[in-house]
């Protein structure tokens, strides 16, 4: 690639171009978009009220199986609620939780990482110890403990997950910042009398954003699974709001008699997480400069 051509694009633009060229990643991004759209438009496209129980439809099979009907295309759960509608509404919860958690965690983690990596000294030590302390705590024990402490509820789930997720972006940003603070452009800014705040936010931050993006998407997949695990332990979102995790967890007792109740949301999680992983892999391929030096 000629330098002249490369010079015409910003690192971000360059990454986007590489991402666009990656068909798998594009497909994955399309799947995520589809899920997001489905979640957003759930109230209009869902055929039924997701909380509307009809015990006489208990465990009704999907339409293509014997005993199913097209009014309830994916069948019904143990309370006779339409699984398709619950999946659509569940997507809102699962995506919302994942997105909010990852955003908050990324912001906190990035700021902490910048401070630790740029200011060094006691700030770094303090943040480093905090990170170690949180990592020294087994995630599930931590999550269960906090959920027990704060009580059930969507906002508490988000809080519990954020508590630990920020650590991951923090670590990455700290490393990148350590490298960046030795770079010429930082030296130059410092020589021009820029304060630490300016240097961190204006000079270094733009350069550490792509790794944060990659870490954030990778962690998003974990967050979705964690939400499911909390549901398994009875600490998930409150009914009647469906989340995919709680749907899988609640349906597990019927795996033999009514596989669809648990399997369909399981597949939804699988697809979403798969798509997120593939997309983030594409992002990494597109944005990680180390992969393009050759």
């Amino acid at each position: 690639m000629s330098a002249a051509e490369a010079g015409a694009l910003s690192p971000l633009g360059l990454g986007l171009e590489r991402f666009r060229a990656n068909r798998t990643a594009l497909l994955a991004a399309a799947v995520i978009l589809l899920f997001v759209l489905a979640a957003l438009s759930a109230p209009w496209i869902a055929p039924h009220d997701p909380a509307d129980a009809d015990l006489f439809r208990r465990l009704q099979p999907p339409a293509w199986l014997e005993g199913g009907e097209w009014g309830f295309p994916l069948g019904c759960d143990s309370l006779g609620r339409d699984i398709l509608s619950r999946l659509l509404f569940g997507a809102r919860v699962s995506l919302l939780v994942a997105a909010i958690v990852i955003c908050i965690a990324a912001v906190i983690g990035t700021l902490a990482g910048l401070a630790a990596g740029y200011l060094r000294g006691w700030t770094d030590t303090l943040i480093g110890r905090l990170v170690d302390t949180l990592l020294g705590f087994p995630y599930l024990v931590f999550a269960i403990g906090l959920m027990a402490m704060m009580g059930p509820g969507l906002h508490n789930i988000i809080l519990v997950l954020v508590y630990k997720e920020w650590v991951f972006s923090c670590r990455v940003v700290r490393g990148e910042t350590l490298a960046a603070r030795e770079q010429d452009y930082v030296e130059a800014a410092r020589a021009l009398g820029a304060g630490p705040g300016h240097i961190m936010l204006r000079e270094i931050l733009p350069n550490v954003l792509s790794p944060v993006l990659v870490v954030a998407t990778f962690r998003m997949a974990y967050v979705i699974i964690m939400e499911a695990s909390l549901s398994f332990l009875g600490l998930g979102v409150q009914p009647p709001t469906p989340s995919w995790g709680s749907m899988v967890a609640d349906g597990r007792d019927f795996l033999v008699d009514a596989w669809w109740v648990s399997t369909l949301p399981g597949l939804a999680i699988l697809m979403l997480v798969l798509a997120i992983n593939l997309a983030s892999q594409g992002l990494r391929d597109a944005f990680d400069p180390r992969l393009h030096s050759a």
Partner: protein
Amino acid sequence: MTASRLLERLFQTLPVLLGVSLIVFLMITLTPGDPVEIMLADSRATPEQAAVLRHDLGLDRPLPERFLIFLGRALTGDFGISFFHRRPVWDVLVERLPATIELTLAAILLALAVAIPLGVAAAVKRDTWMDRALSAISLFGVSLPGFWFGILLILLFAVQWGIFPVGGRTSFDLEVARITGFLLIDTLLAGRLDAFGAALRHLALPAITLGLPTAALLARVVRSAMAEVLTSDYVLFAEAKGLSRGRVLLRHALKNALIPVVTVAAIETGSLLGGNMIVETVFGWPGLGRLVVESIFARNYPLVQAAVLFYAVTYVVLNFVADLLYTGLNPKVRL
């Protein structure tokens, strides 16, 4: 690693352990739910009896005092009495440890055994259909909720096909004396191959369920480490010497690629140890994880405190082991 470096490391871990103890202590005491009320639930206890019990358990003292007492005792290895079992926490913990450790080690070894060949294959066949297929498989591994996958395995392999048992650690008709608590070792000590096989079969499904996501993660690490090593000059140079492909891959490349893998594996062992409660619950595996979850729900403070401290110590130790392994495998860092 020099002695001073070792001391420094140890010193660094102190605030972590202190921090963890403080967090768990605060978390537990700020959590609503009174262990006394739970213990006396369904009973006809009077408030006076509750007060007596509360005093017996030391729950009537002020918070800072309780924390200091806990710390002081923990230093001497005394973690108090488990509210529910009415026995020393340490004894209760130790009974459950071998099962958890056995499961964790089995899972991590299984993960490595799967991840290394797959990761190497993916790296060697980089950007081919095989690479893509392997990465898709590994993505599946991290995309499944563990409890769901575990139940699915039970239904297929245990109920439908009867290949593996449903749960538990061993068959009851194949008994050996439990010396170490690690069944795989005890059965061999007893020279009972049939019992060893039974223990292994019981271990299979939980270890697969627990190890699969880790295998997927490690396969990625192996792949990227191996891919990086394969572009290195020393691999090219080794090939230029006319060495066989196998020797180049398995000796020259793999030995270097394993350095980050082993490091990650050591740290992952820590997460598996602290993250196996779901698998333990699904498979009725009598380990620490399940005990801790039950203890949190039952507000069995002393046990939760001790267990979390144990996890934190393992985390620190495993990080340390990862460091040692990194050093051991990498002559360059040997100081």
